[in-house]
């Protein structure tokens, strides 16, 4: 009895230790990836030297030390500092946070519908956002309405995308809601239907759109992080913190739901309530991410998969691991998208799909038979 107990405690301790080690490893990898992302691009930046130079400059300014600096290096330092502090840094931070957000949302979605192939896109979130964004770009651009203040015009597409995502999810929920709560099978089927419908809208809008708008639409549906700034990064950071806190507090509920809805109810979980909460949190996260950066596929699908093979399926570890690996993957993908054909930038959605899709096929190949039905 006591022997069995000690052994059980040992299993748990060993697993926790391994998981913690894994999280540290990925944290270091994320830090390296973020550093590379800051330094690489159309302008090479030596971040440390730049930071030291900047601090030294501030110090000199504060204590009135005058330095003999040639005008030439001064200018180049200032430009570099601008690229570093106003372009690269907010972009890298926002990229990592968006990656974390998408991966956590994907992880939750997969646990919620008990399908390791699920993705927030599955229930029409990104489809709705894309359709509304396309409409706003081609049919109702902000420039067509004179009463819109310029501050709002800059986030015009984002607002439409956000509302589109919410509308799509509302529709999907409307169809999958029954007296017994949200039915997962109906949710997925309704998602397929809504995705087909939004595809039609995007097609129709593209057909009538001007060349300019068409280019904008295609650019947006492939995802882009080029518009990052500190304001957007701050919004994403706050959302990310709140959403992660919310989802992590529901880790046990997610574990129970992963066992089966009936099981979860027998074991004392208010299934209806938690399912609704999780769905809305996921929707909010993905709608925000899509509104800010367009459609970035495969992160929500592949990252939880990778994490499950490394960390196991317990959401207590899976949620933080997904967030970390999602941030790592997206920041690495962003570096690639900026530096592969520098100074030209490849849309990030294309990079994530190009990495994600083959990797996903590889995972399926490895686990052949797991998804073919029977246990």
């Amino acid at each position, binding site marked *: 009895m006591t022997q069995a107990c000690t052994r059980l405690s040992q299993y748990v301790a060993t697993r926790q230790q391994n998981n913690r080690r894994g999280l540290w490893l990925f944290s270091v990898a994320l830090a390296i990836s973020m550093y590379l992302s800051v330094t690489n691009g159309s302008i090479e930046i030596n971040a440390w030297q730049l930071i030291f130079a900047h601090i030294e400059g501030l110090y000199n300014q504060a204590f009135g030390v005058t330095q003999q600096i040639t005008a030439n290096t001064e200018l180049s330092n200032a430009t570099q500092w601008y690229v570093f502090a106003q372009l690269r840094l907010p972009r890298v931070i926002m990229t990592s946070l968006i990656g974390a957000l998408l991966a956590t949302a994907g992880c939750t979605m997969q646990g919620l519908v*008990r399908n*390791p192939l699920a993705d927030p896109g599955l229930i029409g979130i990104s489809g709705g956002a894309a359709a509304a964004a396309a409409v706003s770009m081609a049919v109702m651009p902000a420039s067509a309405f004179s009463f819109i203040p310029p501050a709002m015009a800059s986030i015009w597409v984002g607002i439409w995308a956000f509302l589109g995502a919410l509308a799509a999810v509302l529709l999907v929920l409307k169809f999958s809601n029954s007296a017994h709560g949200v039915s997962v099978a109906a949710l997925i089927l309704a998602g397929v239907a809504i995705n087909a419908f939004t595809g039609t809208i995007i097609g129709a809008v593209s057909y009538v759109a001007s060349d300019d708008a068409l280019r904008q639409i295609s650019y947006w549906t492939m995802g882009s992080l080029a518009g990052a700034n500190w304001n957007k990064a701050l919004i994403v950071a706050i959302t990310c913190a709140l959403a992660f806190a919310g989802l992590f507090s529901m880790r046990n509920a997610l*574990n129970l739901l992963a066992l089966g809805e*009936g099981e979860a109810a*027998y074991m*004392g979980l208010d299934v209806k309530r938690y399912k609704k909460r999780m769905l809305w949190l996921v929707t909010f996260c993905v709608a925000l991410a899509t509104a800010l950066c367009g459609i970035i596929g495969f992160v929500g699908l592949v990252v939880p998969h990778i994490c*499950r093979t490394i960390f196991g399926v*317990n959401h207590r570890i899976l949620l933080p691991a997904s967030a970390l690996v999602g941030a790592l993957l997206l920041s690495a993908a962003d570096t690639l998208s900026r530096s592969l054909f520098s100074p030209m930038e490849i849309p990030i959605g294309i990079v994530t799909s190009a990495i994600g899709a083959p990797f996903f096929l590889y995972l399926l190949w490895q686990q052949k038979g797991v998804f073919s039905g029977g*246990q």
Partner: protein
Amino acid sequence: MANSNLDRQSTNVLQVENAKVKRGERLLLANINFTVKAGEFIAIAGENGCGKSTLLSILCAADTAQSALVHGEICIQNVPLKHYKVQQLATIRAVMCQHQSSPFGFFVDEILTLARHAVIEPSHLRHACIAGVSEALDLRHLLHRNIQTLSGGERQRVYLAKALLQLIPSSLEDDLSGKLLLLDEPTSALDLRHQKLVMALLAKLSQGGLSIICISHDINLITPYCTRMLVLANQGVIADGAPNQVLTHGVLKQCYQTDLHLLKHPEHGVFVTH
């Protein structure tokens, strides 16, 4: 001891009054009446599709997936089922379903820990509790295994352990009167040794006050251990009583619609055979 036995007999753990279940136009169960006291181990027998699992599912009160309409009143500890919150209910009744599968490969100890998600206890006590139950069900060597790599019988024992862990305060020796365990064919995949192990454990727990309702097709296995048997047929209960009284030629004929022989078992009552 005598006093607590008296208490037990007077507490109704479960009351079913005039229960009727319909799905669409089809009547699944009608006029079901029975009361379960603390410490009773009830076997439910009946032919395929006679409504055993339906009966169990209405007792679980989580009939979410099936669109069955339930009439009549079901009370646990004299409180109607619909007045319970799911969290409350989970501490006094546990369910082990026939088919359970998750696409995610949890470790066995993680599943067993989840069973106690609502209990606030320090981790060493939780581990002791889980270790105790897994010892009793011969799961000790499986705790660190992935559930998807286990055989059907091993999984069945894991899910039984999970159901027990949901009910017990801290160990299997605790007083479990007032609590209800609902089992749907818990031994269908078990080998002979583990069938005996599970049945003996259930019998011991029922002596400790736990009320058990167990659906089983293996009448010969459960007869020596259960204290009472309900036989379902024609949408209702056709026999209810001690197994030796219930298992008669007439009842079996009415239930299974075929001729069966009843033999005398040297140690315990009757033995049914073809």
